[in-house]
């Protein structure tokens, strides 16, 4: 009986450290933040219950909408610019004819290792007026007419002009995360069945068709995963604008994101109740978006019936 009890108890004993830390650091804060979301607080001791007032105030606060607008802008930039760039890099660095592939892979991945704080400090100098690398490069590349048309000159301070703040942040994020997402795509590309390419090739499919009909379906589960992860990560962006802008949230609040809005209310002004309410709205929003994306993406697995594959081979063999 003693041995049997020990054997039954053993898994629970090993789960206990995780269980305890989960209760203390995850479950309790989640429940507590839900309770706090209905109060105005100053620190943990001063607390006044206000019902749904925090939510009502949030949905009538122009700053909140500005934060949502900026965050969505950043997310769209991340998904539609960063992911194609990552996929392009992965496709390029998956080619066997390319020399020093591993070196390039590491080079593109390495910005991710620096972290957002260092990257932000670096790019605050890159985007500086007059002497910044970015303006110098643009000045060298763009003729005078184009400069006049775009209004971007050597004097342009990207981080001090409201309409340019988000593009600057998106470009910085592109530099940081393109290589990181590339690694996911590389792994996915290497798992796509080579026979499918051969079959498509002998069937007369050109490179673009092979990409659309073989590569994309082949990496679809990873693609969906990366999109969902990028959207979640983009909605949580904080350190990058916080450190790249000297006085966050930047000109005309152009760099204000939802998490920065939360941080300002909770940790600069001390209203943890309001910050909790913002946190819940953000969490539910991200959850809804993720579910919607997964639904839109359809089933995870690509179904390639053996019969179809055989058909293709049979059909093309006489031609060869």
């Amino acid at each position, binding site marked *: 009986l003693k041995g049997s009890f020990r054997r039954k108890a053993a898994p629970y004993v090993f789960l206990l450290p995780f269980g305890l830390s989960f209760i203390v650091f995850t479950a309790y804060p989640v429940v507590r933040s839900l309770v706090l979301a209905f109060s105005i607080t*100053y620190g943990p001791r001063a607390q006044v219950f206000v019902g749904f007032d925090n939510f009502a105030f949030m949905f009538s606060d122009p700053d909140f909408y500005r934060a949502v607008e900026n965050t969505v802008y950043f997310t769209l930039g991340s998904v539609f610019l960063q992911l194609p760039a990552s996929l392009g890099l992965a496709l390029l660095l998956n080619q066997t004819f390319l020399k020093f592939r591993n070196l390039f892979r590491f080079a593109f991945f390495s910005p991710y290792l620096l972290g957002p704080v260092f990257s932000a400090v670096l790019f605050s100098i890159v985007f500086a*007026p007059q002497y910044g690398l970015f303006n110098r490069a643009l000045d060298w590349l763009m003729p005078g007419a184009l400069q006049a048309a775009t209004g971007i000159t050597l004097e342009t301070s990207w981080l*001090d002009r*409201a309409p340019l703040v988000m593009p600057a942040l998106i470009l910085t994020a592109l530099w940081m995360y393109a290589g990181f997402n590339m690694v996911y795509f590389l792994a996915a590309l290497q798992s796509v069945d080579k026979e499918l390419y051969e079959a498509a090739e002998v069937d007369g499919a050109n490179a673009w068709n092979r990409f659309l009909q073989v590569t994309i379906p082949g990496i679809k589960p990873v693609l969906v995963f990366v999109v969902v992860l990028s959207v979640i990560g983009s909605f949580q962006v904080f350190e990058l604008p916080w450190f790249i802008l000297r006085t966050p*949230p930047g000109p005309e609040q152009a760099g204000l994101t939802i998490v920065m809005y939360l941080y300002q209310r909770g940790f*600069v002004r001390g209203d943890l109740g309001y910050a909790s309410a913002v946190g819940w709205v953000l969490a539910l929003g991200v959850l809804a978006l993720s579910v919607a994306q997964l639904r839109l993406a359809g089933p995870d697995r690509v179904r390639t019936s053996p019969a179809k594959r055989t058909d293709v081979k049979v059909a093309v063999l006489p031609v060869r």
Partner: protein
Amino acid sequence: LASIARADTAGTAREIQRRKRFHRELTPHLIKGGGHGLRRELRLSLRSLCPTRVGPMPELMPRPIVSSLLSKFRFGTAPLVVALVTLLAGGWVLAHPVHADTATVRLWTYTPEHIKQYEAAAAVYERAHPGVHIAIQQFEYRAMGTRLRSAFWADLDVPELVEINATVGAGFFAGPVDEVGFLDLRPLLESSGLMDRIVKSRLAQFTNRGHIFGLPHDVHPVLIAYRKDIFDAEGIDVSTIETWDDFVRVGRKLRRLPGEHPDGARYILQLPRAEGWGVEIMMIQNGGGYFDAEGHLIMDSEEAVEAIEKYVPMIAGPDRVAGDLGNWAQPMVKAMEDGRTLGFLAPDWRARGFENDMPLLKGKMALMPLPAFRRGGRRTSTWGGSMLGLTKRSKDPELVWDIARFLYTSPESCETEWVGAGILPPVRDAWKLPAFQQHSAYWSNQVPAQEYAKVADDVPAHYMNPLMELAEGKLGEVAAAAVRYYEEQGSTGFDAFVRQHLHDTADVVRRQMRRNPF
């Protein structure tokens, strides 16, 4: 079974097959009977009988302690390793206890420039007061606010003294008065006579609901630091500049717009296009501010409107005389050294920063008063400020107050702080000390301390509120929007735009203020 498992024979295919069969057949029985050790030995013996390897079985060798221990631990290898690592780490922590903090008073500051002076002053104080040990810790500007807030909320690791930026500090005056982590210094300031010795307007920043929560560190009058060599070469006499209109007239002579000269653009003054501090300086100079003495929001007052309308045409549009080539760090240094930025709004702390950051400009720089809005008007403003707060955590408030007074108001500390960090102290009698009479080769032989002291009593009060950070951000928002509007639309409808935008923005702050239930 044991004899088969431990057989000292050479590995043959037949033997391997025999042992495999035994292993397969006997394993269920061994598990049922609890024969884990034997099963393990069977497995080991099988593994050792590789066809290419002939020799004595490893089991016949003396068994290492670790493998013996592993075989006895019933829950497997991984849990055992985790347990061992935990025990080792725990043991190491127990064997290396953190030494008790011997400091009697801890001071937190966010300014690297102050550290050296405070360490020197603390050493002097410790020598005069045996048994007292002052520990000074420096934090990054923004990190300090977060760390201090966490310390107050958790009531853990709260230092006795905190030197904090005025805007960040104002955020700590929120909530019920009892919950404010700083002591009210009003009684101490009055009983010590300091109240009459310091520039009173400096207390405004740290006063909330009648309580004074901080000892002012500075006066921070604002002057203009300018490239005297270039002004002289262009025949400009700064004594003829009395108002902002005069300044703009001179600026038009000196400026070079992009493309006008092979050396690039040149401006008389560096001003931010997208941040609020430039407008803030002019708004305060003009008698405005964010809040009044009673805590009401006044950031959309006539003074603020006038300041914005004076500021924006200086930095935006075709007639601009000011540029934004870099407010800080490398871009600022390069623009100043290249003679593309000719002037800076310079409170005392920035002037010393220039000396450190741009040593090449030694003898080429000078200080001039701020141009006034109207003739005979105020020739200075203020920018920034810090306070020293005594936390309620202090076990010996008298000692802590004594140290605070020594660090901020003693003649030796004031002199050290001026020499080391260029800070004009708020204690008026310190301005007569020898260190404050020194001529400076950097500032074209001017006496910079006296240049600042001349206007120090005219520095306006700058009232703050826990929502100061929000109000500052909102003013910056209006300034940036006004600059953009002026560039796109010019002066048409500019006044109406500024008033409306300022009013709407101020309403956001007022709405937030109305939510305060404490």
